[in-house]
């Protein structure tokens, strides 16, 4: 990881100059030595995509701090503008930043730890909650001077705070601690490895990133290409949007939003007069109105049925037995009986019911004798065979519906004659 590289640099310089400098340098940026120094390398190429205000606030703090206290800092500031001009490095860093978001799924422990640290680093850059930084500082025993500048940086950073702050901060903490351990091992080794021009260090940060991800081996220059191939398979899913949108929360959120809009569309088709409306609030209003009107219609119609019903006791039973007969006829596959007869009946009687029942009796008479206990035996809630009953009943009902008001669910209640039919007596 880049931090290891820069940490190595820092270590070496710190040995020469002042051990105090390590935490001081680490302080203002990432609050962990590895994090702080490493982050400009890792993040700078990737940052312009995020369009975070923190990018602007980030740079001066590094520059000031480094120019004040750090001799090594003379290397960094001229180098920084060079990074974006290096296309390969941008590409690789972008990949890795995406890859790190995926890192939780990696099975290998060291990989996952490092990916987490990388992710945590990204998030600490963009988020930077002050309390966690304070804790980390205490852990390292360096609270002294830089806290003011820390808080200044934190304030600036927290301006660019986004919704993922709380979710990631815990991971951030643990990641930072792990990072401290793993990096200092590797960093010492790598500190002696190379001190080159700035592009080369930039390359090597990315290379060392992959190297640490792989095994933490010593030779920094060679593993870069091998490691570059490894993450290709993994980052693809997350590549769509990089930055904050790639963490799992916002991904889930996006999926949820898509689902909601899809269902809204479905509801829009379902509710008449809703297709022209734009805007979710208005659409919801329409849906609510429709559901309310339907419920009111059910109420009203049940009232109507209650008013009509008392004189129709027999009729319903007759209707039922007729249904059952039809259904039974259909399912017992007496060919030629059900459908043809029934349709001829239906065609012969547009009103279906009152004339239909006497007409019904003729073909269904033998079956009525055969069954003879239709209602008790045909309770569909207990009958396992009831799915096949309505084969012809469906036709009938469909016919009725299409006759009455198939295309238009609006009720024509006023048309309904309230006098009950006399032709129902069987």
């Amino acid at each position: 990881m880049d931090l290891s590289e820069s940490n190595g640099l820092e270590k070496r310089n710190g040995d020469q100059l002042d051990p105090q400098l390590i935490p001081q340098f680490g302080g203002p940026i990432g609050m962990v030595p590895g994090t702080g120094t490493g982050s400009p390398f890792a993040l700078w190429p990737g940052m312009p995509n995020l369009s975070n205000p923190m990018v602007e606030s980030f740079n001066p703090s590094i520059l000031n701090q480094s120019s004040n206290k750090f001799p090594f800092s003379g290397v960094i500031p001229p180098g920084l503008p060079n990074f974006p001009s290096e296309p390969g490095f941008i590409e690789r860093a972008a990949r890795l930043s995406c890859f790190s978001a995926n890192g939780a799924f990696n099975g290998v422990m060291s990989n996952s730890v490092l990916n987490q640290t990388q992710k945590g680093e990204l998030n600490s850059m963009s988020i930077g909650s002050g309390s966690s930084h304070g804790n980390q500082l205490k852990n390292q025993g360096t609270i002294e001077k830089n806290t003011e500048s820390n808080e200044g940086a934190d304030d600036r950073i927290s301006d660019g705070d986004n919704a993922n702050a709380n979710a990631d901060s815990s991971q951030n903490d643990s990641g930072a601690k792990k990072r401290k351990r793993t990096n200092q091992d590797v960093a010492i080794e790598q500190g002696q490895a190379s001190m080159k021009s700035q592009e080369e260090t930039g390359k090597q940060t990315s290379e060392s990133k992959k190297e640490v991800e792989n095994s933490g081996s010593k030779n920094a220059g060679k593993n870069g290409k091998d490691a570059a191939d490894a993450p290709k398979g993994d980052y693809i899913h997350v590549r769509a949007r990089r930055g904050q949108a790639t963490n799992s929360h916002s991904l889930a959120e996006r999926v949820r939003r898509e689902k909601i809009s899809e269902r809204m569309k479905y509801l829009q088709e379902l509710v008449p007069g809703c297709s022209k409306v734009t805007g979710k609030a208005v659409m919801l209003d329409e849906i609510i109105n429709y559901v309310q009107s339907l419920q009111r219609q059910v109420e009203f119609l049940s009232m109507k049925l209650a008013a009509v019903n008392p004189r129709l006791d027999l009729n319903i039973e007759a209707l039922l037995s007729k249904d059952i007969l039809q259904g039974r006829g259909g399912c017992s596959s007496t060919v030629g009986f059900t459908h043809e007869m029934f349709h001829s009946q239906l065609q012969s009687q547009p009103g279906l019911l009152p004339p239909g029942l006497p007409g019904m009796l003729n073909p269904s008479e033998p079956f009525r004798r055969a069954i003879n206990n239709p209602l008790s035996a045909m309770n569909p809630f207990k009958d396992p065979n009831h799915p096949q009953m309505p084969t012809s009943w469906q036709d009938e009902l469909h016919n009725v519906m299409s006759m009455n008001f198939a295309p238009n669910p609006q009720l024509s209640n006023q048309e309904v004659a309230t006098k009950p039919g006399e032709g129902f007596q069987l």
Partner: protein
Amino acid sequence: MNRKNYTHPNPNPNYTSNNSMQSLHFIQALARINRAASKPTTPSCRTKQIRHAAYSSMAYTSGSRRKWSRALLIRLRQRQRLRARRLLTVRRRVRIVTPAMSLPEEPARAETLRRLVPGGRSMEYCNLLEEAADYVQCLRTQVQLMQSLVDAFSS
């Protein structure tokens, strides 16, 4: 009748004919109401019974895969149980419904929709929309069925 020999390819009653099943359930419920109501009942009571029959036939047809139908059936059964128990002791159990966490982007109208769709109070917004769609479909079918029955009986 060889109905025992006949096996439907799909045992799910919602398989092909939701409409017809719903109408069958409803008509059977009506028949049961009519048979039970040998003693004279008030029209309001009959209205309530028929309304319950309508809703429960809807819920039965939709089956247990939908949350609204489950909630509807539970509500109807509880009401029945309450009615039966009211003769003995009036003792209500407080039902605890955990309200769904309302998200900030959720429109304020969603609360109204929650109240309309049975069982919607504890649903997440995304589920609420799905259930509402299914509920609307079933309600529409029911209304069409009842309307056709009313038309047929009163003509």
